[in-house]
Protein backbone atom coordinates (compact mmCIF):
# COMPACT_ATOMS: atom_id res chain seq x y z
CA UNK A 1 0.00 0.00 0.00
CA UNK A 2 2.80 2.40 0.90
CA UNK A 3 4.49 1.66 -2.42
CA UNK A 4 1.24 2.61 -4.14
CA UNK A 5 1.16 5.92 -2.30
CA UNK A 6 4.79 6.63 -3.19
CA UNK A 7 4.06 6.05 -6.86
CA UNK A 8 0.89 8.12 -6.71
CA UNK A 9 2.67 11.12 -5.19
CA UNK A 10 5.57 10.73 -7.59
CA UNK A 11 3.34 10.74 -10.67
CA UNK A 12 1.14 13.56 -9.34
CA UNK A 13 4.14 15.73 -8.51
CA UNK A 14 5.62 14.98 -11.92
CA UNK A 15 2.37 15.93 -13.64
CA UNK A 16 1.96 19.20 -11.73
CA UNK A 17 5.59 20.27 -12.05
CA UNK A 18 5.71 19.52 -15.78
CA UNK A 19 2.42 21.35 -16.30
CA UNK A 20 3.88 24.43 -14.57
CA UNK A 21 7.11 24.15 -16.57
CA UNK A 22 5.08 23.74 -19.76
CA UNK A 23 3.41 27.13 -19.38
CA UNK A 24 6.46 28.97 -18.11
CA UNK A 25 9.07 27.89 -20.68
CA UNK A 26 9.76 30.41 -23.41
CA UNK A 27 11.05 27.80 -25.83
CA UNK A 28 8.07 26.16 -27.53
CA UNK A 29 9.82 22.82 -28.04
CA UNK A 30 10.70 22.67 -24.33
CA UNK A 31 7.04 23.38 -23.53
CA UNK A 32 6.01 20.51 -25.78
CA UNK A 33 8.43 18.17 -24.00
CA UNK A 34 7.01 19.10 -20.62
CA UNK A 35 3.51 18.55 -21.98
CA UNK A 36 4.68 15.06 -22.96
CA UNK A 37 5.97 14.40 -19.44
CA UNK A 38 2.69 15.67 -17.97
CA UNK A 39 0.75 13.28 -20.23
CA UNK A 40 3.07 10.42 -19.32
CA UNK A 41 2.66 11.11 -15.61
CA UNK A 42 -1.12 11.00 -16.07
CA UNK A 43 -0.71 7.71 -17.91
CA UNK A 44 1.29 6.45 -14.93
CA UNK A 45 -1.62 7.30 -12.62
CA UNK A 46 -3.99 5.42 -14.95
CA UNK A 47 -1.70 2.40 -14.75
CA UNK A 48 -1.66 2.67 -10.98
CA UNK A 49 -5.45 2.70 -10.96
CA UNK A 50 -5.33 -0.58 -12.95
CA UNK A 51 -6.89 1.08 -15.99
CA UNK A 52 -4.25 -0.55 -18.19
CA UNK A 53 -5.97 -0.01 -21.52
CA UNK A 54 -6.45 3.68 -20.78
CA UNK A 55 -2.72 3.90 -20.02
CA UNK A 56 -1.78 2.34 -23.36
CA UNK A 57 -4.29 4.45 -25.30
CA UNK A 58 -3.08 7.61 -23.58
CA UNK A 59 0.50 6.89 -24.65
CA UNK A 60 -0.30 5.70 -28.17
CA UNK A 61 -2.76 8.48 -29.00
CA UNK A 62 -1.63 11.54 -27.07
CA UNK A 63 2.09 10.96 -26.69
CA UNK A 64 2.89 8.87 -29.76
CA UNK A 65 0.39 10.49 -32.11
CA UNK A 66 -0.78 13.98 -31.23
CA UNK A 67 2.41 15.23 -29.58
CA UNK A 68 4.53 14.04 -32.49
CA UNK A 69 2.27 16.05 -34.80
CA UNK A 70 2.59 19.06 -32.45
CA UNK A 71 6.37 18.82 -32.66
CA UNK A 72 6.16 18.57 -36.45
CA UNK A 73 4.19 21.81 -36.64
CA UNK A 74 6.38 23.60 -34.09
CA UNK A 75 9.52 22.69 -36.01
CA UNK A 76 8.11 23.89 -39.29
CA UNK A 77 7.19 27.38 -38.03
CA UNK A 78 9.94 29.89 -37.59
CA UNK A 79 10.89 29.67 -33.93
CA UNK A 80 13.31 32.60 -33.80
CA UNK A 81 10.53 35.09 -34.45
CA UNK A 82 8.26 33.50 -31.88
CA UNK A 83 10.93 33.54 -29.18
CA UNK A 84 11.72 37.22 -29.71
CA UNK A 85 8.08 38.32 -29.42
CA UNK A 86 6.90 39.36 -25.99
CA UNK A 87 4.09 36.90 -25.38
CA UNK A 88 0.68 38.36 -24.43
CA UNK A 89 2.33 40.87 -22.13
CA UNK A 90 -0.56 43.36 -22.16
CA UNK A 91 -3.09 40.89 -20.87
CA UNK A 92 -1.25 39.91 -17.69
CA UNK A 93 -3.77 41.40 -15.26
CA UNK A 94 -6.77 40.15 -17.20
CA UNK A 95 -5.21 36.67 -17.32
CA UNK A 96 -4.53 36.66 -13.58
CA UNK A 97 -8.10 37.78 -12.91
CA UNK A 98 -9.58 35.10 -15.13
CA UNK A 99 -7.33 32.41 -13.67
CA UNK A 100 -8.32 33.43 -10.13
CA UNK A 101 -12.00 33.34 -11.07
CA UNK A 102 -11.57 29.94 -12.65
CA UNK A 103 -9.72 28.57 -9.62
CA UNK A 104 -12.41 29.96 -7.32
CA UNK A 105 -15.13 28.31 -9.38
CA UNK A 106 -13.43 24.93 -9.38
CA UNK A 107 -12.68 25.19 -5.67
CA UNK A 108 -16.32 26.11 -4.97
CA UNK A 109 -17.56 23.18 -7.05
CA UNK A 110 -15.24 20.76 -5.28
CA UNK A 111 -16.15 22.17 -1.86
CA UNK A 112 -19.92 22.01 -2.34
CA UNK A 113 -19.74 18.52 -3.82
CA UNK A 114 -17.22 17.12 -1.35
CA UNK A 115 -19.73 14.64 0.03
CA UNK A 116 -19.80 12.76 -3.27
CA UNK A 117 -16.01 12.60 -3.60
CA UNK A 118 -15.57 9.45 -1.54
CA UNK A 119 -16.52 6.54 -3.75
CA UNK A 120 -17.55 3.13 -2.48
CA UNK A 121 -14.56 0.75 -2.27
CA UNK A 122 -13.97 -1.23 -5.46
CA UNK A 123 -13.60 -4.96 -4.97
CA UNK A 124 -10.28 -6.42 -6.13
CA UNK A 125 -10.14 -7.46 -9.77
CA UNK A 126 -13.20 -5.42 -10.73
CA UNK A 127 -11.31 -4.01 -13.71
CA UNK A 128 -9.88 -7.34 -14.92
CA UNK A 129 -9.65 -8.19 -17.75
CA UNK A 130 -9.37 -4.54 -18.58
CA UNK A 131 -9.30 -4.61 -22.39
CA UNK A 132 -12.27 -6.95 -22.57
CA UNK A 133 -14.36 -4.77 -20.24
CA UNK A 134 -13.68 -1.62 -22.25
CA UNK A 135 -14.32 -3.47 -25.52
CA UNK A 136 -17.67 -4.81 -24.35
CA UNK A 137 -18.71 -1.40 -23.05
CA UNK A 138 -17.84 0.29 -26.34
CA UNK A 139 -19.09 -2.28 -28.82
CA UNK A 140 -22.06 -3.75 -26.96
CA UNK A 141 -23.48 -1.22 -24.52
CA UNK A 142 -22.62 2.00 -26.33
CA UNK A 143 -22.50 0.89 -29.96
CA UNK A 144 -24.44 3.81 -31.44
CA UNK A 145 -22.51 6.66 -29.77
CA UNK A 146 -19.29 4.89 -30.70
CA UNK A 147 -20.29 4.65 -34.37
CA UNK A 148 -21.42 8.29 -34.42
CA UNK A 149 -18.06 9.35 -33.02
CA UNK A 150 -16.30 7.23 -35.66
CA UNK A 151 -18.30 8.90 -38.44
CA UNK A 152 -17.41 12.30 -37.03
CA UNK A 153 -13.73 11.38 -37.14
CA UNK A 154 -14.10 10.00 -40.66
CA UNK A 155 -15.70 13.25 -41.81
CA UNK A 156 -12.86 15.24 -40.26
CA UNK A 157 -10.31 12.98 -41.96
CA UNK A 158 -11.91 13.29 -45.39
CA UNK A 159 -12.22 17.03 -44.85
CA UNK A 160 -8.50 17.30 -44.14
CA UNK A 161 -7.69 15.35 -47.31
CA UNK A 162 -10.02 17.52 -49.41
CA UNK A 163 -8.53 20.72 -48.02
CA UNK A 164 -4.94 19.70 -48.55
CA UNK A 165 -5.37 18.36 -52.09
CA UNK A 166 -5.50 20.96 -54.84
CA UNK A 167 -6.91 18.51 -57.37
CA UNK A 168 -8.81 15.40 -56.43
Amino acid at each position, binding site marked *: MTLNLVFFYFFSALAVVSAILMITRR*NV*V*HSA*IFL*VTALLATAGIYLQLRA*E*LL*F*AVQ*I*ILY*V*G*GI*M*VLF*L*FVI*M*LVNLDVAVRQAAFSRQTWLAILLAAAMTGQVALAVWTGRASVTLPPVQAGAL*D*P*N*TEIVGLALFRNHMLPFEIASILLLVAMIGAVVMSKK*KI
Partner: protein
Amino acid sequence: MTDWLIQFFAPHVVPLIIVLFVVLVLPLLVGYVVLLERKVMADMQARLGPMRVGPHGLLQPIADAVKLLIKEDIIPENADRFLFWIAPLISVTAAMVAFSGLTFAPGKYELFGHLNTIAVADLNIGLLFVVAVSSMGIFGIVLGGWASNSHYSLLGALRSSAQMVSYETAAGMALISGLLLAGSLSTRAIVERQAAEGVWFIFLAPVGFFIYLVAGIAETNRAPFDLPEAESELVAGYMTEFSGFRWSLYFLAEYANMIVVSGIATTLFLGGWLRPFAGAAELNFLDFAPPVIFLGVAGYCLWRVPRLFEPVHKVVMTLFAGLCLLLALVLALPVTVLPSWKPVLHGVFWFVAKVVAYLYAFMWFRFTFPRYRFDQLMRLGWQFMIPVSIVHVMLLALALVLQRDPGQGGLGWPWWHGMLVSTGGTLLVAAWLAALSERRQAAPAGSPA
Protein backbone atom coordinates in the same frame (compact mmCIF):
# COMPACT_ATOMS: atom_id res chain seq x y z
CA MET B 1 12.15 -8.72 9.61
CA THR B 2 13.62 -11.11 7.07
CA ASP B 3 10.15 -12.57 6.51
CA TRP B 4 8.86 -9.15 5.70
CA LEU B 5 11.75 -8.53 3.31
CA ILE B 6 11.14 -11.82 1.52
CA GLN B 7 7.44 -11.08 1.28
CA PHE B 8 8.24 -7.65 -0.11
CA PHE B 9 10.85 -8.68 -2.64
CA ALA B 10 9.69 -12.15 -3.73
CA PRO B 11 7.32 -10.91 -6.46
CA HIS B 12 10.08 -8.67 -7.81
CA VAL B 13 12.94 -11.16 -8.11
CA VAL B 14 12.34 -12.37 -11.68
CA PRO B 15 11.40 -8.89 -12.98
CA LEU B 16 14.54 -7.45 -11.36
CA ILE B 17 16.71 -10.11 -12.99
CA ILE B 18 15.22 -9.33 -16.39
CA VAL B 19 15.55 -5.58 -15.88
CA LEU B 20 19.18 -5.92 -14.81
CA PHE B 21 19.82 -8.16 -17.79
CA VAL B 22 18.27 -5.68 -20.21
CA VAL B 23 20.13 -2.71 -18.75
CA LEU B 24 23.53 -4.32 -18.16
CA VAL B 25 23.92 -7.21 -20.61
CA LEU B 26 21.86 -5.97 -23.55
CA PRO B 27 24.42 -3.32 -24.64
CA LEU B 28 27.06 -6.06 -24.79
CA LEU B 29 24.70 -8.35 -26.71
CA VAL B 30 23.94 -5.51 -29.12
CA GLY B 31 27.67 -5.22 -29.73
CA TYR B 32 27.71 -8.89 -30.68
CA VAL B 33 24.64 -8.47 -32.89
CA VAL B 34 26.62 -5.80 -34.72
CA LEU B 35 29.53 -8.22 -35.05
CA LEU B 36 27.13 -10.86 -36.34
CA GLU B 37 25.77 -8.37 -38.84
CA ARG B 38 29.28 -7.56 -40.08
CA LYS B 39 30.04 -11.27 -40.36
CA VAL B 40 26.79 -11.95 -42.25
CA MET B 41 27.53 -9.00 -44.54
CA ALA B 42 31.05 -10.28 -45.13
CA ASP B 43 29.73 -13.75 -45.85
CA MET B 44 27.24 -12.44 -48.42
CA GLN B 45 29.96 -10.37 -50.06
CA ALA B 46 32.48 -13.25 -50.06
CA ARG B 47 34.79 -11.60 -47.51
CA LEU B 48 35.94 -12.59 -44.03
CA GLY B 49 34.82 -9.55 -42.05
CA PRO B 50 36.51 -8.53 -38.79
CA MET B 51 39.28 -11.06 -38.04
CA ARG B 52 42.00 -9.16 -36.16
CA VAL B 53 40.62 -8.34 -32.72
CA GLY B 54 40.21 -11.68 -31.00
CA PRO B 55 39.71 -14.98 -32.80
CA HIS B 56 37.37 -14.41 -35.75
CA GLY B 57 36.86 -10.86 -34.47
CA LEU B 58 35.22 -12.05 -31.25
CA LEU B 59 36.59 -9.12 -29.23
CA GLN B 60 35.75 -6.52 -31.87
CA PRO B 61 32.56 -5.28 -30.07
CA ILE B 62 34.53 -4.58 -26.89
CA ALA B 63 37.19 -2.68 -28.80
CA ASP B 64 34.46 -0.69 -30.58
CA ALA B 65 32.74 0.10 -27.29
CA VAL B 66 35.97 1.36 -25.75
CA LYS B 67 36.64 3.47 -28.82
CA LEU B 68 33.18 5.03 -28.68
CA LEU B 69 33.48 5.69 -24.94
CA ILE B 70 36.75 7.60 -25.15
CA LYS B 71 35.91 9.57 -28.28
CA GLU B 72 35.63 13.33 -27.93
CA ASP B 73 32.10 14.41 -27.08
CA ILE B 74 31.18 17.24 -29.43
CA ILE B 75 28.12 19.43 -28.94
CA PRO B 76 27.49 21.95 -31.72
CA GLU B 77 27.88 25.62 -30.74
CA ASN B 78 24.24 26.65 -31.20
CA ALA B 79 22.64 23.37 -30.23
CA ASP B 80 19.91 23.20 -27.63
CA ARG B 81 22.12 21.55 -25.00
CA PHE B 82 19.31 20.18 -22.82
CA LEU B 83 17.48 18.47 -25.68
CA PHE B 84 20.73 17.41 -27.33
CA TRP B 85 21.62 15.68 -24.08
CA ILE B 86 18.23 14.07 -23.49
CA ALA B 87 17.27 12.99 -27.03
CA PRO B 88 19.45 9.83 -27.33
CA LEU B 89 18.42 8.88 -23.79
CA ILE B 90 14.74 8.98 -24.79
CA SER B 91 15.42 6.61 -27.67
CA VAL B 92 17.36 4.14 -25.53
CA THR B 93 14.93 4.27 -22.61
CA ALA B 94 11.90 3.70 -24.83
CA ALA B 95 13.55 0.70 -26.48
CA MET B 96 14.64 -0.81 -23.16
CA VAL B 97 11.35 -0.29 -21.32
CA ALA B 98 9.57 -2.05 -24.18
CA PHE B 99 11.26 -5.29 -23.13
CA SER B 100 9.20 -5.40 -19.94
CA GLY B 101 6.08 -6.31 -21.89
CA LEU B 102 7.53 -9.48 -23.41
CA THR B 103 7.11 -12.91 -21.83
CA PHE B 104 10.06 -15.24 -22.40
CA ALA B 105 8.93 -18.57 -20.99
CA PRO B 106 5.68 -20.31 -20.15
CA GLY B 107 3.77 -20.78 -16.94
CA LYS B 108 4.22 -19.44 -13.48
CA TYR B 109 7.04 -20.34 -11.09
CA GLU B 110 6.89 -20.43 -7.36
CA LEU B 111 9.58 -18.45 -5.60
CA PHE B 112 9.31 -17.93 -1.82
CA GLY B 113 5.61 -18.70 -2.06
CA HIS B 114 4.94 -16.26 -4.88
CA LEU B 115 3.81 -17.16 -8.38
CA ASN B 116 6.01 -15.51 -10.99
CA THR B 117 5.88 -15.35 -14.75
CA ILE B 118 9.11 -15.13 -16.71
CA ALA B 119 8.42 -11.53 -17.60
CA VAL B 120 8.73 -8.15 -15.94
CA ALA B 121 4.95 -7.87 -15.88
CA ASP B 122 2.26 -10.12 -17.29
CA LEU B 123 0.06 -7.24 -18.36
CA ASN B 124 -3.46 -7.56 -19.65
CA ILE B 125 -2.42 -5.13 -22.41
CA GLY B 126 0.97 -6.82 -23.06
CA LEU B 127 1.49 -6.20 -26.75
CA LEU B 128 -0.18 -2.79 -26.66
CA PHE B 129 2.26 -1.79 -23.92
CA VAL B 130 5.25 -2.82 -26.02
CA VAL B 131 3.95 -0.98 -29.07
CA ALA B 132 3.04 2.14 -27.07
CA VAL B 133 6.37 2.41 -25.30
CA SER B 134 8.51 1.68 -28.32
CA SER B 135 6.56 4.25 -30.36
CA MET B 136 7.94 6.89 -28.00
CA GLY B 137 11.36 6.38 -29.53
CA ILE B 138 10.21 8.80 -32.25
CA PHE B 139 10.74 11.63 -29.77
CA GLY B 140 14.41 10.80 -29.52
CA ILE B 141 14.72 11.15 -33.27
CA VAL B 142 12.62 14.30 -33.68
CA LEU B 143 14.24 16.10 -30.76
CA GLY B 144 17.73 14.97 -31.68
CA GLY B 145 17.28 16.36 -35.18
CA TRP B 146 15.84 19.63 -33.94
CA ALA B 147 18.28 20.17 -31.08
CA SER B 148 21.31 19.86 -33.36
CA ASN B 149 20.34 23.18 -34.97
CA SER B 150 21.39 21.93 -38.38
CA HIS B 151 19.37 21.74 -41.58
CA TYR B 152 20.49 18.24 -42.45
CA SER B 153 19.50 16.99 -39.02
CA LEU B 154 16.11 18.73 -39.00
CA LEU B 155 15.19 17.44 -42.45
CA GLY B 156 16.44 13.99 -41.49
CA ALA B 157 14.34 14.04 -38.33
CA LEU B 158 11.20 15.05 -40.22
CA ARG B 159 11.88 12.40 -42.83
CA SER B 160 12.36 9.60 -40.37
CA SER B 161 9.48 10.51 -38.07
CA ALA B 162 7.16 10.71 -41.10
CA GLN B 163 8.34 7.24 -42.06
CA MET B 164 7.89 5.80 -38.58
CA VAL B 165 4.42 7.31 -38.10
CA SER B 166 3.31 6.03 -41.52
CA TYR B 167 4.43 2.47 -41.01
CA GLU B 168 3.11 2.31 -37.46
CA THR B 169 -0.40 2.09 -38.94
CA ALA B 170 0.43 -0.88 -41.14
CA ALA B 171 2.30 -2.59 -38.29
CA GLY B 172 -0.65 -2.01 -35.97
CA MET B 173 -3.07 -3.52 -38.48
CA ALA B 174 -0.80 -6.55 -38.92
CA LEU B 175 -0.70 -6.95 -35.13
CA ILE B 176 -4.51 -6.79 -35.05
CA SER B 177 -4.71 -9.68 -37.51
CA GLY B 178 -2.62 -11.76 -35.10
CA LEU B 179 -4.60 -10.54 -32.08
CA LEU B 180 -7.87 -11.58 -33.75
CA LEU B 181 -6.54 -15.13 -33.80
CA ALA B 182 -5.18 -14.95 -30.25
CA GLY B 183 -8.17 -13.27 -28.64
CA SER B 184 -5.96 -11.58 -26.07
CA LEU B 185 -3.34 -8.87 -25.75
CA SER B 186 -1.35 -10.57 -23.01
CA THR B 187 1.93 -11.90 -24.39
CA ARG B 188 1.59 -15.02 -22.24
CA ALA B 189 -1.99 -15.75 -23.34
CA ILE B 190 -1.08 -15.27 -27.02
CA VAL B 191 1.53 -18.00 -26.95
CA GLU B 192 -0.62 -20.27 -24.80
CA ARG B 193 -3.38 -19.91 -27.41
CA GLN B 194 -0.93 -21.00 -30.12
CA ALA B 195 0.03 -23.99 -28.00
CA ALA B 196 -3.65 -24.87 -27.55
CA GLU B 197 -4.44 -24.51 -31.26
CA GLY B 198 -1.36 -26.54 -32.12
CA VAL B 199 -0.33 -24.16 -34.89
CA TRP B 200 1.76 -20.98 -35.02
CA PHE B 201 -0.19 -17.97 -36.20
CA ILE B 202 2.21 -17.41 -39.10
CA PHE B 203 0.48 -20.36 -40.78
CA LEU B 204 -2.99 -18.92 -40.12
CA ALA B 205 -2.20 -15.34 -41.11
CA PRO B 206 0.86 -15.38 -43.40
CA VAL B 207 -0.11 -12.02 -44.93
CA GLY B 208 -0.25 -10.41 -41.51
CA PHE B 209 3.20 -11.75 -40.71
CA PHE B 210 4.61 -10.46 -43.99
CA ILE B 211 3.15 -6.99 -43.45
CA TYR B 212 4.54 -6.92 -39.91
CA LEU B 213 7.93 -8.00 -41.23
CA VAL B 214 8.07 -5.16 -43.76
CA ALA B 215 6.58 -2.56 -41.43
CA GLY B 216 8.96 -3.66 -38.68
CA ILE B 217 11.93 -3.04 -40.95
CA ALA B 218 10.58 0.40 -41.83
CA GLU B 219 9.92 1.25 -38.19
CA THR B 220 13.38 0.33 -37.04
CA ASN B 221 14.85 2.34 -39.93
CA ARG B 222 16.69 -0.60 -41.41
CA ALA B 223 17.69 -1.15 -45.03
CA PRO B 224 16.01 -1.15 -47.53
CA PHE B 225 14.08 1.54 -45.65
CA ASP B 226 17.06 3.16 -43.93
CA LEU B 227 16.40 6.64 -45.32
CA PRO B 228 16.69 8.28 -41.90
CA GLU B 229 20.42 7.61 -41.93
CA ALA B 230 21.18 6.97 -45.58
CA GLU B 231 24.75 8.08 -45.00
CA SER B 232 25.83 7.65 -48.59
CA GLU B 233 23.08 9.83 -50.07
CA LEU B 234 21.33 11.98 -47.47
CA VAL B 235 24.12 12.69 -44.97
CA ALA B 236 23.35 10.84 -41.74
CA GLY B 237 19.89 12.28 -41.14
CA TYR B 238 18.97 13.15 -37.58
CA MET B 239 22.27 11.93 -36.15
CA THR B 240 24.49 14.09 -38.36
CA GLU B 241 25.76 16.16 -35.42
CA PHE B 242 25.97 13.31 -32.93
CA SER B 243 29.29 11.64 -32.29
CA GLY B 244 31.01 9.35 -29.85
CA PHE B 245 28.95 8.02 -27.01
CA ARG B 246 25.72 9.89 -27.87
CA TRP B 247 25.82 8.47 -31.37
CA SER B 248 26.37 4.98 -29.99
CA LEU B 249 23.28 5.44 -27.79
CA TYR B 250 21.20 5.95 -30.94
CA PHE B 251 22.83 2.86 -32.36
CA LEU B 252 22.02 0.91 -29.21
CA ALA B 253 18.40 2.07 -29.43
CA GLU B 254 18.15 0.96 -33.06
CA TYR B 255 19.39 -2.54 -32.29
CA ALA B 256 17.33 -2.81 -29.11
CA ASN B 257 14.29 -1.85 -31.19
CA MET B 258 15.17 -4.56 -33.69
CA ILE B 259 15.21 -7.08 -30.86
CA VAL B 260 11.87 -5.79 -29.54
CA VAL B 261 10.28 -6.04 -33.00
CA SER B 262 11.68 -9.57 -33.34
CA GLY B 263 10.31 -10.38 -29.91
CA ILE B 264 6.82 -9.17 -30.86
CA ALA B 265 6.88 -11.13 -34.13
CA THR B 266 8.15 -14.22 -32.28
CA THR B 267 5.42 -13.96 -29.67
CA LEU B 268 2.57 -13.26 -32.02
CA PHE B 269 3.40 -15.21 -35.16
CA LEU B 270 6.23 -17.64 -34.43
CA GLY B 271 4.93 -19.37 -31.32
CA GLY B 272 7.05 -17.58 -28.71
CA TRP B 273 8.77 -20.08 -26.44
CA LEU B 274 7.19 -23.16 -28.10
CA ARG B 275 9.51 -25.77 -29.56
CA PRO B 276 8.98 -26.41 -33.28
CA PHE B 277 6.32 -29.18 -33.51
CA ALA B 278 5.65 -28.89 -29.77
CA GLY B 279 2.52 -31.00 -30.13
CA ALA B 280 4.13 -33.97 -31.92
CA ALA B 281 5.36 -36.49 -29.32
CA GLU B 282 7.33 -38.47 -31.93
CA LEU B 283 9.53 -35.39 -32.49
CA ASN B 284 10.41 -35.09 -28.81
CA PHE B 285 14.04 -35.79 -29.68
CA LEU B 286 14.13 -32.10 -30.66
CA ASP B 287 14.41 -31.42 -26.92
CA PHE B 288 18.01 -32.55 -27.25
CA ALA B 289 18.68 -29.88 -29.88
CA PRO B 290 19.58 -27.00 -27.48
CA PRO B 291 22.44 -28.77 -25.64
CA VAL B 292 23.62 -30.53 -28.82
CA ILE B 293 23.85 -27.22 -30.72
CA PHE B 294 25.99 -25.64 -28.01
CA LEU B 295 28.09 -28.79 -27.70
CA GLY B 296 28.72 -28.61 -31.44
CA VAL B 297 29.79 -24.95 -31.26
CA ALA B 298 32.07 -25.69 -28.30
CA GLY B 299 33.60 -28.66 -30.13
CA TYR B 300 34.25 -26.55 -33.24
CA CYS B 301 35.91 -23.83 -31.15
CA LEU B 302 38.15 -26.35 -29.37
CA TRP B 303 39.06 -27.86 -32.72
CA ARG B 304 40.03 -24.40 -33.97
CA VAL B 305 42.22 -23.53 -30.95
CA PRO B 306 45.46 -25.25 -32.11
CA ARG B 307 45.05 -23.70 -35.57
CA LEU B 308 45.13 -20.12 -34.26
CA PHE B 309 48.44 -18.27 -34.21
CA GLU B 310 48.12 -15.56 -31.58
CA PRO B 311 48.27 -16.78 -27.95
CA VAL B 312 45.55 -14.26 -26.97
CA HIS B 313 43.28 -15.69 -29.65
CA LYS B 314 43.84 -19.18 -28.27
CA VAL B 315 42.89 -18.08 -24.75
CA VAL B 316 39.77 -16.23 -25.91
CA MET B 317 38.69 -19.11 -28.11
CA THR B 318 39.09 -21.58 -25.23
CA LEU B 319 37.07 -19.28 -22.95
CA PHE B 320 34.35 -19.03 -25.61
CA ALA B 321 34.29 -22.83 -25.92
CA GLY B 322 34.00 -23.03 -22.13
CA LEU B 323 31.04 -20.64 -22.17
CA CYS B 324 29.32 -22.74 -24.83
CA LEU B 325 29.99 -25.92 -22.80
CA LEU B 326 28.49 -24.28 -19.72
CA LEU B 327 25.37 -23.30 -21.69
CA ALA B 328 25.16 -26.84 -23.09
CA LEU B 329 25.34 -28.23 -19.56
CA VAL B 330 22.63 -25.87 -18.31
CA LEU B 331 20.39 -26.74 -21.26
CA ALA B 332 21.09 -30.45 -20.77
CA LEU B 333 19.78 -30.34 -17.19
CA PRO B 334 16.07 -30.38 -18.16
CA VAL B 335 16.40 -33.44 -20.43
CA THR B 336 18.36 -35.43 -17.85
CA VAL B 337 17.88 -34.70 -14.15
CA LEU B 338 15.62 -31.69 -13.74
CA PRO B 339 12.54 -32.11 -15.98
CA SER B 340 10.61 -29.47 -14.07
CA TRP B 341 13.05 -26.81 -15.27
CA LYS B 342 12.46 -27.62 -18.93
CA PRO B 343 9.75 -25.04 -19.64
CA VAL B 344 11.87 -22.17 -18.35
CA LEU B 345 15.31 -23.08 -19.73
CA HIS B 346 14.19 -24.48 -23.07
CA GLY B 347 11.43 -21.87 -23.38
CA VAL B 348 13.97 -19.09 -23.14
CA PHE B 349 16.26 -20.97 -25.55
CA TRP B 350 13.61 -21.33 -28.25
CA PHE B 351 12.46 -17.74 -27.79
CA VAL B 352 16.00 -16.44 -28.21
CA ALA B 353 16.63 -18.79 -31.14
CA LYS B 354 13.58 -17.43 -32.97
CA VAL B 355 14.58 -13.86 -32.19
CA VAL B 356 18.05 -14.52 -33.59
CA ALA B 357 16.59 -16.10 -36.73
CA TYR B 358 14.38 -13.03 -37.18
CA LEU B 359 17.40 -10.75 -36.70
CA TYR B 360 19.22 -12.76 -39.34
CA ALA B 361 16.32 -12.03 -41.72
CA PHE B 362 16.76 -8.32 -40.92
CA MET B 363 20.42 -8.56 -41.96
CA TRP B 364 19.68 -10.71 -44.97
CA PHE B 365 17.25 -8.08 -46.32
CA ARG B 366 19.73 -5.31 -45.65
CA PHE B 367 22.33 -6.86 -47.93
CA THR B 368 19.86 -8.06 -50.55
CA PHE B 369 17.59 -5.15 -51.45
CA PRO B 370 18.61 -1.73 -52.71
CA ARG B 371 17.43 1.31 -50.79
CA TYR B 372 14.00 2.79 -51.57
CA ARG B 373 13.56 6.43 -52.56
CA PHE B 374 11.48 8.45 -50.09
CA ASP B 375 8.43 8.87 -52.37
CA GLN B 376 8.55 5.16 -53.19
CA LEU B 377 8.67 4.39 -49.48
CA MET B 378 5.66 6.60 -48.75
CA ARG B 379 3.69 5.25 -51.70
CA LEU B 380 4.40 1.68 -50.62
CA GLY B 381 3.32 2.49 -47.08
CA TRP B 382 0.13 4.45 -47.71
CA GLN B 383 -1.12 3.05 -51.01
CA PHE B 384 -0.18 -0.58 -50.57
CA MET B 385 0.67 -1.78 -47.06
CA ILE B 386 -2.10 0.03 -45.18
CA PRO B 387 -4.99 -0.90 -47.53
CA VAL B 388 -3.81 -4.50 -47.81
CA SER B 389 -3.47 -4.83 -44.03
CA ILE B 390 -6.97 -3.39 -43.48
CA VAL B 391 -8.46 -5.78 -46.05
CA HIS B 392 -6.62 -8.63 -44.36
CA VAL B 393 -8.03 -7.76 -40.95
CA MET B 394 -11.57 -7.59 -42.39
CA LEU B 395 -11.30 -10.90 -44.27
CA LEU B 396 -9.69 -12.63 -41.31
CA ALA B 397 -12.49 -11.48 -39.01
CA LEU B 398 -15.04 -12.77 -41.54
CA ALA B 399 -13.23 -16.12 -41.81
CA LEU B 400 -13.12 -16.45 -38.02
CA VAL B 401 -16.89 -15.92 -37.83
CA LEU B 402 -17.49 -18.48 -40.59
CA GLN B 403 -15.32 -21.00 -38.71
CA ARG B 404 -17.70 -20.93 -35.75
CA ASP B 405 -20.25 -23.67 -35.25
CA PRO B 406 -23.52 -23.25 -37.18
CA GLY B 407 -25.34 -22.65 -33.90
CA GLN B 408 -23.23 -19.55 -33.25
CA GLY B 409 -23.85 -17.92 -36.60
CA GLY B 410 -21.01 -19.57 -38.52
CA LEU B 411 -20.76 -22.31 -41.12
CA GLY B 412 -18.49 -24.60 -39.12
CA TRP B 413 -15.61 -24.33 -41.58
CA PRO B 414 -12.33 -26.10 -40.83
CA TRP B 415 -9.46 -23.72 -40.06
CA TRP B 416 -7.74 -24.15 -43.42
CA HIS B 417 -10.86 -22.95 -45.25
CA GLY B 418 -10.74 -19.74 -43.29
CA MET B 419 -7.02 -19.41 -43.89
CA LEU B 420 -7.45 -19.90 -47.64
CA VAL B 421 -10.29 -17.36 -47.85
CA SER B 422 -8.55 -14.65 -45.83
CA THR B 423 -5.12 -15.12 -47.41
CA GLY B 424 -6.39 -15.65 -50.96
CA GLY B 425 -8.76 -12.68 -50.80
CA THR B 426 -6.04 -10.43 -49.43
CA LEU B 427 -3.58 -11.53 -52.10
CA LEU B 428 -6.17 -10.79 -54.81
CA VAL B 429 -6.69 -7.28 -53.44
CA ALA B 430 -2.91 -6.84 -53.19
CA ALA B 431 -2.45 -7.88 -56.83
CA TRP B 432 -5.19 -5.48 -57.90
CA LEU B 433 -3.56 -2.61 -55.96
CA ALA B 434 -0.17 -3.41 -57.45
CA ALA B 435 -1.62 -3.43 -60.98
CA LEU B 436 -3.37 -0.13 -60.26
CA SER B 437 -0.20 1.60 -59.12
CA GLU B 438 1.69 0.16 -62.09
CA ARG B 439 -0.87 1.67 -64.46
CA ARG B 440 -0.70 4.97 -62.60
CA GLN B 441 3.05 5.11 -62.97
CA ALA B 442 2.92 4.13 -66.62
CA ALA B 443 0.55 7.03 -67.37
CA PRO B 444 2.33 9.97 -69.09
CA ALA B 445 3.36 12.83 -66.86
CA GLY B 446 0.76 15.57 -66.48
CA SER B 447 -2.22 13.31 -66.99
CA PRO B 448 -4.64 13.14 -64.06
CA ALA B 449 -3.44 10.52 -61.63
